[in-house]
């Protein structure tokens, strides 16, 4: 039984796993104490639940629980890591390096640092979406104090060479931050091996609830941060604010399940994604965005040439996906990630991100393949550009008359 629209937008958010919900609800209802209340059992038991969840998050990434700080989500973790580290270490230098394809939570935070007087380098990526280590090396200066590179890109799913970047940064004494919001439960993360100093985590990308995330802050060697949220001194002074027990319990359980289920789930998801890939790439004039090898199995981002983006999105209403356009109040802008991969505006606008997950079925994949074939076919029938392409006209040589 298909439920419409079919959800293929797991990278935007994931449903809360029923097992996670079951674990969370008692902490929302009967066991409602404030974990900072030291005077009674309601508080003590809440605190204990929070510490257990901390261990579960640490276990997924092979970290020490003491290195896990609770936040309200990966956006806040990114802000805390980047501003916190930059402010703390600004005596050593004021240059920061990141990548053009980072999430806005990183890019806008780095821009904020620039407004404060820091200097920033935004690295280009190759056509496959991966950074070139030589380009990073060349960008490093004596006054570079922080590098921020995401583990897995949210739009195209590519996996950056975090291990090598870590080695490079450690060698140069530069703090290395990684936004791992899209990575947990999809790739192995071993912080005992990876030379990463700060890592951001999100719960709602890994079948946990919204409103909670975490920041890994390395203790060996010790990384220091300037706190961004001040108050009662929670989280060893790094992040004040009453902890939401039920959300934290949910994140812990979600990460525990991710650890247990990852290998099997990845295999299943890869099979489904590859079926979708072959089913769609046999449509003419389609382009996969981002490297297919260095990529999580959950993501497929494809541009469909000679099809107008908005019409495409409207035509495939039966599936819930994400397009290569972002709404601003004034206009529809092409995805900056796809532009960084070298796609022109038209191809960026007519791209679709399919992101599948734990609850995706083969039936849903089959329906999707069918739907895209039908709709792309119809839209192209109506497209004069498609006609010209079929007639062998090189559209790049056409002189378009102005209207």
């Amino acid at each position, binding site marked *: 039984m298909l439920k419409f629209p079919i959800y293929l937008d797991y990278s935007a958010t994931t449903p*809360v796993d029923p097992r996670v919900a079951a674990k969370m*609800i008692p902490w929302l209802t*009967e066991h409602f104490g404030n974990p900072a209340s030291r005077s009674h059992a309601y508080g003590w038991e809440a605190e204990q639940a929070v510490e257990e969840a901390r261990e579960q998050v640490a276990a997924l990434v092979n970290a020490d629980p003491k290195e896990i700080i609770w936040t309200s989500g990966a*956006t806040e973790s990114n802000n805390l890591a980047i501003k916190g580290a930059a402010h703390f270490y600004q005596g050593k230098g004021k240059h920061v390096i990141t990548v053009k394809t980072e999430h806005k939570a990183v890019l806008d*935070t780095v821009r904020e640092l620039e407004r404060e007087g820091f200097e920033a380098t935004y690295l280009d990526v190759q056509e496959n979406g991966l950074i070139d280590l030589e380009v990073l090396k060349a960008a490093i200066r004596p006054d570079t104090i922080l590098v921020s590179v995401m583990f897995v890109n949210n739009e195209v799913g590519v996996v950056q060479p975090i291990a090598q970047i870590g080695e490079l940064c450690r060698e140069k004494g530069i703090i290395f931050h990684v936004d791992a919001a899209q990575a947990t439960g999809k790739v192995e993360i071993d912080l005992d091996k990876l030379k990463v100093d700060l890592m951001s985590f999100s719960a709602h990308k890994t079948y946990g609830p919204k409103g909670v995330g975490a920041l890994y802050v390395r203790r060996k060697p010790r990384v220091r941060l300037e706190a961004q949220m*001040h108050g009662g001194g929670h989280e060893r002074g790094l992040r004040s604010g*009453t902890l939401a027990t039920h959300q934290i319990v949910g994140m812990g359980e979600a990460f525990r399940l991710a650890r247990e289920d990852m290998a099997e789930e990845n295999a299943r998801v890869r099979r489904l994604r590859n079926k979708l890939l072959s089913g769609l790439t046999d449509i003419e004039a389609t382009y996969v965005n981002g490297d297919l090898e260095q990529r999580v199995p959950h993501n497929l981002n494809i541009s469909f040439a000679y099809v107008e983006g908005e019409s495409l999105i409207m035509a495939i209403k039966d599936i819930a996906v994400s397009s290569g356009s972002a709404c601003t109040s004034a206009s529809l802008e092409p995805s900056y990630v796809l532009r960084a991969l070298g796609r022109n505006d038209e191809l960026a606008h007519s791209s679709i991100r399919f992101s599948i997950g734990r609850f995706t079925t083969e039936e849903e994949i089959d329906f999707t393949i069918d739907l895209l074939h039908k709709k792309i076919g119809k839209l192209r029938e109506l497209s004069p550009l498609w006609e010209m392409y079929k007639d062998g006209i090189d559209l790049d040589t056409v002189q378009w008359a102005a209207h």
Partner: protein
Amino acid sequence: MSFAPVYLDWNATTPLAPEVRDAMLPWLGAAQPARFGNASSRHEYGRQARAAIDEARARVAAAVGAHATEVVFTSGGSEANNLFLKGAAACLKPGTLAISAIEHPCVREPARQLRRAGWALHEIAVDADGRIDVADWRRVLEARPTLVSVMLANNETGVLQDVAALASEARKAGAWLHTDAVQALGKIEVDFRSLGVQAMTLSAHKLGGPLGAGALVLDKRVELSPLIAGGGQERGLRSGTENVAAIVGFGLACERAVAHRAAESSRLSVMRDGIEAALSALGAVVFSRAAIRLPNTVFFAFDAIDGETLVGKLDRAGFACASGSACSSAQPEPSHTLLAMGVDPTVARGAVRVSLGRDTTAEEVERFVATLSHVVRDLRNLASVAL
């Protein structure tokens, strides 16, 4: 928990109201149909999430007499306080900031940060009852503060400040006034417009809503630099995927709390007054008794009885109370509020807070008073034996 103590710590946090829980469950995947969209997604799942947030925003706004566009959702009260103080200051040249001497740490600490960043920080003194000292307030106004923050209701003593009057005078002196109203909403009347403040902090879990959601109610004339940058949610003032479940709960909790406020505050103040009469009979000092306070709060101390000890005994006897506020109960320091009121530190160390709520019954209060008498008597006997 095998036994459930009677919960008398409603100022620390509150259990979820049943209708709030029911509204939240689908958004947590715990009831069908499960809802989970990212509100920024353009498809139906996203649109549902967006609609739920809009509805909740309207409820929060209506509950405090503000416009929906004046409500900025945050992860809680602490964050809203941080957002106002640091966010407003970031758009201004360093000037003078004034806060009352009895603010919660999540106002005090950001204020200290601003001082480190070059702001002059003034603390407005309170009198022996915990009310803003008028003479000191006038003195502070003469220093031409740009920003002022005074809490509407104190979490420990329950004392209420005449924020409307303060806001009026602050405005004439060219200052913006912010009030932390997290303890007030649902217990007393709170109207953003009538208060005349430029900013107000609210927290869901203080009024039968969930942990993880709060709001800064903000006059749109106040320029604010966001603390959390990113995808541009909350009109750019607070980025991050919206916590739909918590926001939905927050909206409903505000609506509920305001609807029941009048009847509830009567009911609670009768019980609270009963506790105070008993406390007086037992020889306890009740802090701020003469001041206008929240209807549910009583902050007291017994001579020569340590507050932590008393609270521990009460917990074992089946009653959950607090000594000092939850946030700072990790450090065994006397209440900051009491010290600001001029209470002797030795007396302050005896402080215990009992705060009542929606589920508190007269029968529970009777049992509490009886238990308290026994516990106090036993502790006094122990003390006299020890001499």
